[in-house]
């Protein structure tokens, strides 16, 4: 008997087979780590420090845009010739889901802001908080699509975040180290998946006349 749910889940999971999503996300996280590291290097009262703070949203948005472009380009060059083209549905979330997501985001943002406004002793918890929040998010995705290595990445996020906090590296420096290490973990996981994918699916020879267009 055909297991419909298994096929649907497997189809969604196929998006992650080539590891390119992890490579792209790893690059984005490394960029974030670099941004936070720059904040620790630049003198706090300098003009550059203010510019860096103002540019935070712009950095995130433009980095996200560039990374998604790179991901699309790599998929076109690497994935589609090997395992075929597929465009996934962009699900429009229900209004309740949007409200719940906005509420959760606001709550997390407010908690982080409150944590940041508190004494330095509490601020050192920021890497652990980031690590645990990302661990929950990655765990949610892993559970939804069933990619085993995402469970490992979720565990890595929690371990890195808590480990950096326990090492007493500091708040911003600690956060930058967390993003650097977690980004590197994502990147390595993606590259390992990509190598496995490339070995499993070598680029096929150019199509013969009875190829995909034969239908």
């Amino acid at each position, binding site marked *: 008997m*055909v297991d*419909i749910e298994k*096929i649907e889940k497997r*189809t969604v999971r196929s998006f992650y087979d080539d590891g390119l999503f992890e490579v792209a996300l790893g690059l984005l996280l490394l960029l974030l780590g670099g941004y936070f590291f720059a904040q620790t290097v630049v003198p706090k009262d300098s003009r550059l420090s203010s510019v860096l703070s103002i540019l935070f949203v712009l950095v995130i948005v433009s980095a996200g845009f560039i990374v998604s472009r790179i991901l699309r380009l790599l998929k076109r060059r690497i994935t*589609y010739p090997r395992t*075929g*083209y597929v465009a996934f*549905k962009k699900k429009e979330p229900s209004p309740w889901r949007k409200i719940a997501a906005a509420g959760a985001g606001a709550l997390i943002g407010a908690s982080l802001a409150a944590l940041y406004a508190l004494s330095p002793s509490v601020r050192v918890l920021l890497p652990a908080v980031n690590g645990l929040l990302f661990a929950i998010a990655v765990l949610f995705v892993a559970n939804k699509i069933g990619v085993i290595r995402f469970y490992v990445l979720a565990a890595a996020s929690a371990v890195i975040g808590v480990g950096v906090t326990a090492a007493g590296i500091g708040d911003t420096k600690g956060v930058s180290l967390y993003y650097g290490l977690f980004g590197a973990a994502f990147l390595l996981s993606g590259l390992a998946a990509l190598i496995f994918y490339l070995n499993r699916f070598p680029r096929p020879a150019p199509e013969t006349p009875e190829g995909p267009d034969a*239908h």
Partner: protein
Amino acid sequence: MPTDVRLLSDLDRVIHEPARLALAAILSVVESADFLYLQRETGLTKGNLSSHLAKLEEAGYVAIEKTYRGRIPLTLVRLTDAGAAAYKAYRARFRKFLEKA
């Protein structure tokens, strides 16, 4: 006729065939997919895939678009609204049958 048997006999036969059911299940979660992707995911031969897609197209359940990416021919397949509705109905009916059985 008992309800559970009627549920089974009323199943859409175009979709009920295992290969076409697998194709409908794949296409239900994607916007569109090309021939190579469907072939790899289902494990069907080119000929078999073509014939099952033709049956689904005949029933109005899939739309097949022949296009080019650069100079490479590309056959894009997507589930039509009728196909999506038929698959959804099949899924619900089959689940009901399994619950009753």
